[in-house]
């Protein structure tokens, strides 16, 4: 008699089996091992949180760039701005004529960055939050609000009764004429009013250019629920009043345009843009709000990419932990899986059930991580905005909001990583034979894949070297993304991780004679001499964290050394003067000629340089344009040349009209070389300059074009200065001079040479603060990973532990053996990571940094911090291993089945 041939399970039946395995087996294990499950979940969540918080903080910093005018107008359709300097407001009449009858609202804007006055003891640069002063035509704004029937009143707010309070009006409302006739009347944000206890009628001190201004609050900026929240540090002033206060009569930063609703998004909108462009001629360029926002993103993209990639470190180690934990679960449940297989569960169903576990872990970790990340982002956003302020543009964002896109990205990254990490253990689970384990019990040794470590590791290393030689990917705005450099680092770490597992064998061999007289050490060493895949994974994870941290330590030390040498060379003057309102990289406050000429002509000043600095928009991106006395720099040997000019006319004002020198970052960004021509758009028309030399400048990653100030002032039609460098006459005490100048000019920041050098180094270190925080998270997660790895190893060896106890080993003996094993793993990971960090440091210095920022750094290997890192990791690793060993020694003995 024959029976029917068995049929293959159908899909529906298969999913039911997977579901059953998950709910009846896997989920119950999770519930039984609640603490372990929670720990794994938290570790994954930490990785996701680090990644998510940095993304949110970056987004908040960039978003703040765009939101200033949106809160008072609404989304504008076009923006007209001069490529260099300001627009003249005479253009408004021409635009009005050209756009007559088109229904276009024209909004002229002057935007300046001011600062609150310095407290008497305060000496730090960039320590005060920037205040954005937005000059707008308030009458036009109120008309616009009335026409659109918005409940937005600029001129009816009352004195002594701020709008955020619900008290009854105490005095007559501020009317239109009173405000317009009061040149210091300003509107502040509701948040500023609340936090600084400001009311309508309160006074507010502010530093702008070289002056300290006393402003009066005449109202709170009216907000609307359908528009972005008003940023805290935004102040709105009537346009003519701000032009007067800033000494910029007749000048505008930009003009924004609101098109009629029927035109938006139609070809007619482009026709209007063409009209505006035609009217502006060479005086301005038209941008859309999107392209303006992109400018902010482009400016910081290198910085943001670096932070994002660093934040992935914690996630990377988190993935390893998921892999390791799921793999350990497969090992622990081998006999159970074998039973399932014996009962007829197919390998595919086992695979799916384990992948489902990884998937659910990813979702739970992702959700928990996004919540934690949002909390972390509130702290991270301050650090990020400090760096953005110091290096890129004014931002005063203090909170990061949840963002749906970022949340989905973080959760899907967590899920993808988790499933990826769970795939290999799931495949191994599926391969477990049904019968063998049931007969051999826990002693059955799972066959480990015979990875030829050197054979795999070496090509990865070679690939890392090849990738480091690849050119960067060009980004919008002249930026570069060093993809080859990052891939080189990744491949190098992978290769190093694979090869470094072999160190365990070597260490085991070397340590054998030293351990032969101690049972514990001998036992621990015997495990090192025959490392399992789990040992190697633990070494690789530690190597990854130590190599990345060590690489960053080398990069930062090299950076610090280079910057330190650079400032020693370039900061030669006794005193440096700038507006005290310049608290960010894009604060272009000026010193009027009357002020600076009075200072530089003092008898106790023997030599001086007067510099004018302003942003310039070239076709490929924004750079910094600097007009200075080149002969002064040459006299005081202040250039660190990469290519010294051979044409000495560059130092003579009468001869250098068509010459310029550029920074290294400029040449890296735009690919220019000495002798190349540059076209510079100015209010006086295009100026064609020839690059005469290239110098190092670690203060600006966008790139600097340096020309003689006499010519720049003429082109820009201004006599203002941005900074002064002063050399005191022989016998003059710079501190006394500083004190005198401070008294005479309270709106100016006057710094001694030493103070400025110290401040430069402080700001430099501050910009790396978040980097260290991210590295710390990576190290912490990998140390916890070492602990869980050892715990898994001990669980696998539960029978061995029972045997050891039966042989008379005490918990101390067992802990000691485990500590030796853990120390060896930590030592190999840390030592391999140390070696790797030197290679990684080289990639960061010569590839990633060079391609992203365009700076040549002096390589520096700081021995002490690196040794401290290695010792710290080994010590923490040993301690973790000791604790795990103590725990392992108390595992209950196997019972009779």
């Amino acid at each position: 008699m024959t029976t029917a041939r068995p049929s293959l399970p159908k899909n529906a039946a298969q999913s039911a089996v997977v579901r059953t395995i998950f709910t009846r087996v896997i989920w119950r294990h999770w519930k039984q091992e609640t603490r372990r499950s929670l720990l794994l979940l938290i570790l994954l969540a930490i990785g996701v949180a680090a990644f998510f918080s940095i993304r949110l903080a970056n987004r908040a910093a960039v978003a703040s760039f765009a939101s200033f005018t949106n809160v008072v107008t609404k989304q504008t359709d076009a923006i007209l701005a001069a490529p260099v300097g300001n627009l003249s407001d005479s253009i408004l009449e021409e635009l009005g004529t050209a756009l007559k009858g088109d229904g276009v609202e024209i909004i002229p804007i002057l935007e300046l960055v001011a600062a609150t006055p310095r407290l008497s003891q305060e000496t730090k640069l960039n320590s005060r939050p920037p205040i954005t002063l937005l000059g707008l035509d308030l009458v036009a704004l109120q008309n616009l609000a009335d026409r659109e029937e918005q409940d937005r009143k600029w001129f009816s707010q009352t004195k002594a009764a701020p709008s955020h309070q619900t008290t009854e009006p105490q005095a007559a409302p501020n009317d239109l004429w009173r405000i317009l006739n009061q040149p210091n009347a300003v509107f502040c944000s509701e948040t500023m009013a609340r936090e600084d206890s400001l009311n309508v009628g309160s006074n507010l001190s502010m530093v702008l250019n070289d002056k300290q201004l006393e402003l009066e609050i005449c109202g709170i900026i009216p907000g609307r629920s359908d528009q972005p929240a008003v940023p805290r540090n935004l102040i709105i002033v009537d346009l003519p009043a701000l032009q007067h206060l800033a000494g910029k009569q007749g000048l505008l930063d930009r003009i924004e345009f609101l098109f009629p609703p029927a035109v938006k998004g139609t070809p007619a909108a482009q026709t209007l843009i063409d009209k505006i462009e035609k009217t502006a001629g060479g005086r301005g360029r038209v941008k859309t709000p999107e392209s303006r926002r992109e400018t902010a993103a482009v400016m910081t993209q290198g910085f943001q990419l670096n932070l994002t990639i660093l934040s992935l470190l914690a996630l990377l180690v988190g993935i390893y932990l998921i892999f390791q934990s799921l793999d350990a679960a497969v090992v622990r449940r081998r006999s159970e899986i074998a039973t399932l297989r014996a009962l007829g569960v197919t390998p595919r169903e086992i695979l799916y059930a384990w992948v489902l576990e990884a998937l659910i872990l990813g979702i739970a970790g992702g959700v928990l991580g996004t919540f934690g990340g949002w909390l972390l982002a509130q702290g991270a956003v301050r650090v990020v905005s400090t760096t953005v302020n110091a290096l890129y543009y004014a931002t005063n964002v203090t909170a990061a909001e949840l963002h749906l896109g970022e949340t989905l990205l973080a959760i899907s990254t967590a899920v993808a990583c988790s499933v990826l990490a769970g795939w290999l253990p799931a495949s191994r689970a599926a391969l477990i034979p049904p019968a063998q384990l049931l007969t051999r019990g826990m002693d059955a040794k799972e066959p480990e894949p015979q990875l030829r470590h050197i054979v795999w590791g070496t090509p990865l290393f070679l690939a890392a070297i090849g990738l480091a030689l690849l050119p960067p990917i060009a980004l919008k705005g002249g930026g570069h993304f060093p993809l080859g450099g990052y891939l080189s680092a990744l491949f190098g770490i992978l290769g190093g991780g694979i090869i470094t597992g072999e160190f365990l064998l070597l260490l085991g061999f070397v340590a054998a004679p030293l351990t032969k007289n101690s049972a514990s050490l001998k036992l621990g060493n015997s495990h090192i001499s025959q490392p399992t895949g789990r040992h190697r994974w633990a070494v690789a994870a530690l190597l990854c964290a130590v190599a990345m941290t060590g690489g960053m330590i080398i990069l930062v030390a090299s950076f610090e050394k280079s910057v330190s040498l650079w400032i020693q060379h370039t900061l030669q003057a006794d005193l440096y003067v700038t507006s005290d309102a310049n608290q960010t990289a894009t604060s272009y406050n000026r010193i009027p000629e009357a002020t600076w000429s009075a200072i530089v002509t003092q008898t106790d000043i023997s030599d001086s340089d007067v510099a004018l600095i302003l942003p310039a928009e070239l076709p490929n991106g924004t750079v910094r344009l600097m007009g200075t006395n080149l002969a002064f720099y040459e006299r005081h040997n202040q250039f660190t040349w990469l290519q010294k000019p051979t044409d000495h006319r560059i130092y003579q004002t009468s001869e250098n009209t068509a010459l310029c020198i550029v920074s290294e970052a400029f040449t890296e960004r735009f690919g220019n070389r000495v002798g190349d021509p540059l076209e510079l758009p100015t209010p006086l028309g295009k100026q064609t300059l020839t690059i005469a030399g290239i110098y190092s400048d670690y203060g600006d990653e966008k790139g600097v074009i340096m020309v003689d100030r006499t010519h720049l002032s003429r082109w820009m039609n201004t006599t203002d200065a941005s900074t002064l460098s002063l050399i005191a006459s022989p016998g003059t005490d710079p501190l006394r001079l500083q004190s005198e100048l401070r008294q005479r000019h309270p709106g100016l920041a006057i710094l001694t040479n030493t103070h400025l050098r110290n401040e430069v180094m402080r700001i430099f270190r501050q910009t790396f603060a978040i980097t260290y925080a991210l590295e710390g998270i990576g190290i912490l997660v990998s140390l916890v990973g070492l602990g869980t790895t050892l715990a898994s190893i001990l669980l696998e060896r539960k029978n061995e532990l029972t045997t050891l106890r039966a042989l008379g080993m005490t918990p101390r003996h067992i802990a000691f053996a485990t500590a030796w094993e853990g120390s060896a793993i930590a030592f190999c990971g840390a030592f391999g990571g140390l070696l790797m960090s030197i290679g990684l440091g080289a990639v960061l210095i010569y590839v990633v940094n060079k391609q992203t920022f365009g700076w040549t750094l002096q390589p520096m290997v700081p021995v002490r911090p690196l040794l401290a890192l290695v010792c710290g990791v080994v010590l923490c690793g040993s301690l973790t291993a000791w604790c795990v060993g103590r725990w392992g020694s108390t595992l209950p003995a196997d019972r009779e089945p």
Partner: protein
Amino acid sequence: MSAIVLECREICKSYDQGPVLRGVSMLLHEGERLALTGPSGCGKTTLLNCIGGIDRPDSGQIQLLGHDLTTLNALLLASMRRQKIGNIFQFFHLLPTLSVQENIEFPLQLLDIPPKERSERAAALLERVGIAHRAQALPAKLSGGEMQRVAIARALIHRPALILADEPTGNLDSHNGANILALLKELTEETSTALLLVTHSAEATQICHRRIAMRDGAIAHDE
């Protein structure tokens, strides 16, 4: 009458799922071989674990060479196991990363015996159990019979007063099983070591002087 090596009095032990040992009492003399039999789950291994000091009974007394194991702390228990007890397991439980010789020497190393004496005693036992030619092999390279010989050598190397053997032939074929039993008998006779043998096998019972049958956590017969 020879001296008492082990005396258990009213040993009780429960786990979450219920009582496993219900007032077990027994005596074992020097050089005596005692077979402990019974169906799976009757509490044999738990009793062995309690006698070996790996697990603690809930109540009752276990006197090993006059010391009450139930009153000793973890360190003293470990010390008793190290000096007075030898263990043999069904699945051998050799330390996988140590060679055959190192496995056998291991208990001596725990007792701080000098290396020279360790290797001499190990070499002698290796010869005695017939696996001197595999001294440097790792356990994974051995057959089941060879592994159990190593386990026996390891259990005897430190000259314990009591050998606890949990199904020592349970994982061996009948030929190897018979050889191992014969070896155990010879060696325990030579050294006058007491042997407590947990087994299901009639052949194993035959090498013992006495047999105790357990059922549901209590002694059913003592013959």
